């Protein structure tokens, strides 16, 4: 039975146990709130994490750790929400980036890095014969959809209910600033619901330009769900039958599960694949790669940005890909992710409070098994962030976590120790 009325917040508990652990963050945020809508907007908004009970501003980072503006240290399990796949400030990547920076970054022209990177990516992705680049994931998912429309001369976009593909009107989840027409040709189906998908295809027969999927379902505030056997292959087949372009949004999982794209893990083959996040290990870059047949429509759909061809992120990406391959990073992430998962599961069993992990171990989603409203889990994460002796573990309460190659066994074990204390403190509030 829970003793609390349910209205006592993590903020209050943290406030009671440790005076102002995030004072500097808060002071900065007060200034921010005067001059920036939301203070911090988007996925990094405190509102999306644990307002008042989590750090708001970072100061520096190294490997799998970062320090906030209050000087508190965190073992990081969010990795910048995905980009950091090798660890913060990876020396080899930064050396290459620094060298390129000395030569210049943004010019009147692209550099040779752009050609090299396109060649490298095309060689890694089995179905691809071309690549283009942007900065953020949204740049390339939205562009890919336009390429599909150009290629098919059709209007409809089919996407997953609860999926995320970026900030543009066709796909973001917010109603603000959106007019009905923006989404008039966007239709959703449910993950693993092949019949629902087939129905949607029938209803819009001859009008569907593309189907955009993620390699597995990774909603925020919900368990990750792997594809049912044959689900993605059946979607692929249907797309082939109907001349529909199949887009794989591999922005979140890309390069963490397989170097050649996550479709290789789940046994299907898309027409376009979108990458970002891990591609630059923190340097801003995204890419879309596609089949030969889509090259001409791709050449027609306008694509550019003031900084999209800048050389430093491309140089960094080339090095990132080398290291991912050389060190077989996906296998390493799987191993350390598995160590974390087993450790958390053991902890749950020991305390009689199951921790449910879902999705791939390298990109896992965790919550307490006996609640779906995250109330206790939020407290657990708040305590984990607060940590022990000035070192916390940044466990996100509502978003999937990310492992990086910088997480050693010792780091995972230290995080599990922090989790143990957080668990004790969380359960002290219940009998």
């Amino acid at each position: 039975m829970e003793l609390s009325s349910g209205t006592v917040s993590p903020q209050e508990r943290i406030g009671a146990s440790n005076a102002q652990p995030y004072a500097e963050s808060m002071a900065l945020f007060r200034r921010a709130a005067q001059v920036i809508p939301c203070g911090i907007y988007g996925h990094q908004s405190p509102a999306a994490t644990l307002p008042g009970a989590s750090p708001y501003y970072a100061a520096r980072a190294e490997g799998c750790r970062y320090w906030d503006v209050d000087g508190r240290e965190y073992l990081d399990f969010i990795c910048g929400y995905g980009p950091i796949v090798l660890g913060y400030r990876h020396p080899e990547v930064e050396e290459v980036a620094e060298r390129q920076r000395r030569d210049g970054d943004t010019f009147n022209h692209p550099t040779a890095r752009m050609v090299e990177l396109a060649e490298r990516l095309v060689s890694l992705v089995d179905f691809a014969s071309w690549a283009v680049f942007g900065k953020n994931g949204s740049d390339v998912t939205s562009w890919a959809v336009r390429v599909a429309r150009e290629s098919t001369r059709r209007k409809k976009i089919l996407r997953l209910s609860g999926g995320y593909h970026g900030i543009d009107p066709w796909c973001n989840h917010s109603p603000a600033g959106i007019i009905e027409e923006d989404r008039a040709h966007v239709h959703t189906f449910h993950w693993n619901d092949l019949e629902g998908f087939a129905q949607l295809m029938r209803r819009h027969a001859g009008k569907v330009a593309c189907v955009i999927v993620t390699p597995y379902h990774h909603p925020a505030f919900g368990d990750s769900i792997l594809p049912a056997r044959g689900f993605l292959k059946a979607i692929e087949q249907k797309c082939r039958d109907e001349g529909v372009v199949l887009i794989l949004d591999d922005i979140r999982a890309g390069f963490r599960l397989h170097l050649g794209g996550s479709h290789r893990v789940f046994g299907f083959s898309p027409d376009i694949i979108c990458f970002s996040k891990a591609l630059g290990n923190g340097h801003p870059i995204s890419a879309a790669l596609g089949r030969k047949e889509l090259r001409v429509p791709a050449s027609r759909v306008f694509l550019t940005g003031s900084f999209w061809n800048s050389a430093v992120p491309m140089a960094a990406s080339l090095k990132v890909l080398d290291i991912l391959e050389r060190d077989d990073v996906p296998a390493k992430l799987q191993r350390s992710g598995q160590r974390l998962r087993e450790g958390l599961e053991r902890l749950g069993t020991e305390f009689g409070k199951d921790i449910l992990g879902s999705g791939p171990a390298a990109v896992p989603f965790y919550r307490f098994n006996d609640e779906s409203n995250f109330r206790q889990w939020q407290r657990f994460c708040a305590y984990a962030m607060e940590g022990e002796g000035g070192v916390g573990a940044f466990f996100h309460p509502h978003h999937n976590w990310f492992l990086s190659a910088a997480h050693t066994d010792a780091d995972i074990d230290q995080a599990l120790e922090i989790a143990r204390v957080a668990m004790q403190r969380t359960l002290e509030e219940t009998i």
Partner: protein
Amino acid sequence: MTPAAIEHLRCRLFLFAVLPAMDDLLKASEEARALLGDESFSVAFKTRSGLRGAYFLEGETCRFDWGNAAEKADVELFFHSDAQANSTFEGRKAIPPMPTRGISKIGRVKQFQDIAAVLEDFLQPNGDALRDTDFREAFVKTYFGIMLRSLCQLCEHERVSREIFRSGPHGLAQFQLGRDGVPTWLNLVPRRLDWGRGEPPRTADVTVCFNDPAVALHALHDEMDAQAELGLGTLEINGFPPLAEQVNLLMERIELYLPRGKTPAGI
């Protein structure tokens, strides 16, 4: 939606969401209580479109009923159209409704109208009034009650809201002014859609706590930078935030039918 359907929905909101707020008003406003005096009085409204609501006023309470209890009201008034009812409720020029019962007590409808006028003023306070903490709390409570009653109506009777409601997320949301404030809750669950004040029937899936009544006011008037307030801690959301977002989304629809006021400058 056709103009007639919009009028019908608006009438529904006046009858079932706005006028029941007289209960909060009588508790909060001496002026309203003075108008009622020591006597009890009840009035029922009926529309040709089939809507019916009755208000039993006594002391500090206004009991609302939409069932057969309307037949026990002292006076019953009939509107030939929803538009006629809406014009009347909004204080616009309209043909008066037809008394169908209680002609002898018809004079007392004036008393009801006067109290309704106090309610209207109460819901559009000036900045000075809102600087008074007690008033502000009473206002937020009253306004919030109207919003939640409206929301429940829309979830059942408006297509888009119904779809939003059906698609989820579902669960119990709790709202309060201050961490020790009296909770108001909304059970946003199909077939169990309901709201109330006091401890909710079970632990809420999300608790939204306004630590500053001014922020609550801005929220009600849709003038709040929620993310900034959350970061500052003047607003707290614990539990399942998508449910709070869902409530917000539904509340935004109310404005299509009952325009919200603006917070006076300086609050």
